[in-house]
């Protein structure tokens, strides 16, 4: 082992440490204190180390290793290249905050004992890291399934509640359907050579038909994990069921492993993308994003809202992915690098801000035991820490400057603006339509986030007990602060971040933004030239803050700073109560009205003569009825048909075996 092979070994060491922490948790099954204050902070340190080594490995070349575990003659091939290093860095950075928060979050009495939880959690982390490192289909699938299983157990932590059982089952089912598609995809990729290492797949030159088959299978398989339409149904069920740090980990990091898989297959293993793949990805991505954000606006459960918002963000990432494919297929490499950078940047951003938001809801949930938006409100007064950090996440999630969410949206829109040179006329004209869709999604995300933050943290408390809510503990605050810092720093220094990301597009599409020198200086992001487009979040922030400070000073100096506290004005209405504020349903009403055809709504409206008027509205996912229930009905019919063969008599079953045997013999003879 020479020194250059250090990062991959170090990362493996982190994986081993995670396993060890998990096992230690099992040893101390019921000791909440040890698990909370010892093991989880330790694991956060391991995450930091992972992020550090992954970042160190990003610019370096690919490193490989072979682990002789598993079946004899089928060792695990591991490889650390720029793509996997980037996603490992995402894993490390996000999980560092999540783990430290989890230390303060997990308490006894939540179903699974804390020690077992600790094991599942760390197996989940380790398997995600191994998925990112795997360099053959066998290792990949083993780790992929391990990841699915461990997260299944984490989702069903409170396994006594039937709803959670159902959510867990749905998740497992879709994870497996996806896994089958991925397996088939690898089967196509190895092109009948029987060698399932990624190195062999890279060497194959598939015909366009088989390459397209592999791409579509990958899109389906990884799409099921990422939650693209119409395979998203598990997300809004699983996220509210899982404990918040687990939701954060799943939404922030696990969804990204699916994006990693898509990028790995499309740009690395197949490496000759065809333009219409990009169109498929663009269409699916935009549909997913619009669907996600429109449904997020109608949610009344804060974690479901965030789950739909995750669907939206995955949609945006897939849009960027599709754009990168289109540009690569037409050999427009610098634009492909721009789109790819936007995609990776958004992966990183989403990992940070969505984790932050999920952790914020976790703290709220702990403080109030309430997940329904309609029963929250006014928490900013009782939980200022959580409120302020969540506000940072909200601004990032709404994609507003100077946060990190804006940078990736900006890059994405920039890459749409330069599509004029595309040779295909239809594609050229569709690009503005897609850009418009992205802009609409971004603006709707703002609506959703105002609803999320405003209803939870602002206004009057909608329930009496909310005034007893206490702010998050020290470990929780540390985790929240870490992720908030991520939101701010990733937003303020985009050029530095892009320089770090740069080896990935360079490896995948043959050009990087920073490498070709079109990036601007440390404070000014200018992906092509400064005349063409530039953005400097630092200057925007400093200028705004300067104006704010000067305004405060001048106003207080020239005039005065007197403030009188009084009851709220409210147009002079004296008897205002907390129930007169918009509820979550009320706030989402305009969106429901505009996008009515999208929803399956059940409304219960009161009449003027009701003695106990009730208003209730439930919004359901129409795809559930259109797709899944139909599949279920079809399956039911088929199985009833198959059930006809079941006669209950041994001799008939023997007859089936006999017929099969004879048929097979006949076939082999021919």
């Amino acid at each position, binding site marked *: 082992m020479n020194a250059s092979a250090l990062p991959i070994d170090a990362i493996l060491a982190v994986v081993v440490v995670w396993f060890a922490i998990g096992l230690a948790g099992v040893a101390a099954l019921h000791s909440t204190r040890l698990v909370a204050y010892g093991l989880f902070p330790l694991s956060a340190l391991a995450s930091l180390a992972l992020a550090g080594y992954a970042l160190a490995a990003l610019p370096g070349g690919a490193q490989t290793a072979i682990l002789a575990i598993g079946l004899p003659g089928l060792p695990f091939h591991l490889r650390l290249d720029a793509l996997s290093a980037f996603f490992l860095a995402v894993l490390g950075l996000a999980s560092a905050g999540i783990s430290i928060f989890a230390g303060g979050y997990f308490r006894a009495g939540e179903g699974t004992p804390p020690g077992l939880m600790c094991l599942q959690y760390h197996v989940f982390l380790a398997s995600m890291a191994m998925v990112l490192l795997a360099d053959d289909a066998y290792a990949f699938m083993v780790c992929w399934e391990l990841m699915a299983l461990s997260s299944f157990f984490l989702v069903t932590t409170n396994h006594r509640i039937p709803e959670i059982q159902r959510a867990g089952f749905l998740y497992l089912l879709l994870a497996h359907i996806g896994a089958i598609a991925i397996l088939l995809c690898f089967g196509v990729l190895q092109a009948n050579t029987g060698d399932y290492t990624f190195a062999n797949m890279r060497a194959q030159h598939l015909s366009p038909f088989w390459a397209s088959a592999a791409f579509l299978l990958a899109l389906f398989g990884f799409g099921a994990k990422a939650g693209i339409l119409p395979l998203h149904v598990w997300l809004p069920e699983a996220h509210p069921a899982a404990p918040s740090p687990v939701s954060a980990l799943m939404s922030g990091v696990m969804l990204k492993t699916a994006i990693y898989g898509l990028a790995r297959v499309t740009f690395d293993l197949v490496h000759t993308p065809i333009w219409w793949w990009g169109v498929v990805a663009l269409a699916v991505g935009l549909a997913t994003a619009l669907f996600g954000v429109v449904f997020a606006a109608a949610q009344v459960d804060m974690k479901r809202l965030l789950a739909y918002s995750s669907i939206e963000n995955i949609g945006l990432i897939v849009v960027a992915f599709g754009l990168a494919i289109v540009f690569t297929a037409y050999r427009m490499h610098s634009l492909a690098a721009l789109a790819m950078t936007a995609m990776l940047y958004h992966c990183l951003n989403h990992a940070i801000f969505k984790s932050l938001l999920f952790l914020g809801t976790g703290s709220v949930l702990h403080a109030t035991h309430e997940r329904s938006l309609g029963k929250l409100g006014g928490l900013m007064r009782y939980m200022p820490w959580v409120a302020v950090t969540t506000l940072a996440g909200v601004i990032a999630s709404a994609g507003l400057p100077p946060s990190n969410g804006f940078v990736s949206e900006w890059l994405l829109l920039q890459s749409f603006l330069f599509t004029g040179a595309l040779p295909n*006329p*239809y594609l050229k*004209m*569709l690009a503005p*339509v897609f850009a418009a869709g992205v802009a609409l999604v971004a603006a709707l995300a703002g609506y959703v986030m105002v609803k999320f933050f405003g209803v939870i943290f602002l206004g009057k408390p909608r329930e009496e007990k909310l005034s007893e809510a206490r702010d998050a503990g020290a470990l929780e605050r540390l985790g929240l602060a870490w992720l908030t810092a991520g939101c701010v720093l990733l937003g303020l220094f985009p050029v530095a971040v892009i320089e770090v990301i740069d080896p990935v597009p360079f490896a995948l599409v043959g050009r990087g933004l920073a490498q070709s020198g079109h990036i601007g200086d440390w404070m000014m992001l200018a992906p092509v030239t400064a005349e063409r487009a530039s953005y400097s979040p630092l200057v925007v922030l400093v200028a705004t803050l300067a104006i704010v400070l000067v305004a405060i000073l001048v106003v207080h100096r020239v005039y005065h700073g007197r403030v009188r506290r009084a009851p709220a004005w409210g147009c002079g209405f004296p008897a205002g109560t907390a129930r007169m504020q918009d509820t979550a349903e009320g706030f989402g009403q305009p969106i429901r009205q505009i996008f009515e055809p999208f929803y399956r709504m059940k409304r219960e409206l009161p009449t003027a003569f009701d003695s106990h008027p009730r208003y209730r509205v439930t919004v359901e996912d129409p795809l559930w009825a259109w797709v899944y229930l139909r599949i279920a009905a079809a399956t039911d019919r088929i199985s009833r048909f198959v059930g006809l063969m079941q006669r209950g008599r041994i001799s008939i079953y023997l007859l089936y075996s006999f017929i099969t045997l004879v048929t097979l013999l006949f076939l082999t003879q021919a």
Partner: protein
Amino acid sequence: MTSFSTQLVNLFAAVLLLIAFAMLSQRRIVALINLFALQGLALVGSTVTVAYATGQHHLYYSAGITFALKVVVLPLILHRLIRKLNVKWDIETLINIPSMMLVGIVLVIFAFNLALPISEFSRSVSRGTLGIALACVLMSFLMMITRSKAVPQVIGFLSMENGLFFAATSATFGMPMVVELGIALDVLVGMVILGVFMFQIREQFDSLDISHLEKLKED
């Protein structure tokens, strides 16, 4: 053709398209008629520009006919008609304007790509105008499909003719004079017939809502 007149024709093309979209999303009948007159005016403008730029004198005549017919006579007839029919303030119940406009956008993209191979032959105009003319025709069609009242349908029919006329002038410097005169006469006579027809419909059903015509079907 100079670059300036090309730009001017392009501008008129864009205005035509804009008016086509405005007509698609206009609820009031009075405004619809005014938009139709405006569309005729844009058409006159583009025809005069083409006539001036290419020196095709017969286009001046057709511009004159267009002006007289589509900017003055037909809108006047239509205004009179709705006053007589007492539907001046009628409002169409359009369900969803944005989604109709979305369909319109799809039609524009489709029409442009359809016209692409043809317009490569024609060197007289910039490439897009034929596509826009086609889009105007398709959108007038769409308007006729979505309207339920008789008068807007007639306006849709007339504006479809506008689109065709624009295609003719911008792509091939207009049709022969005889054909143009014939079409003008046709439109005028068609208008008169439709006007009579509308009175008949109202006589019969007390309304201009053509969904009533479904009753005429034999069961």
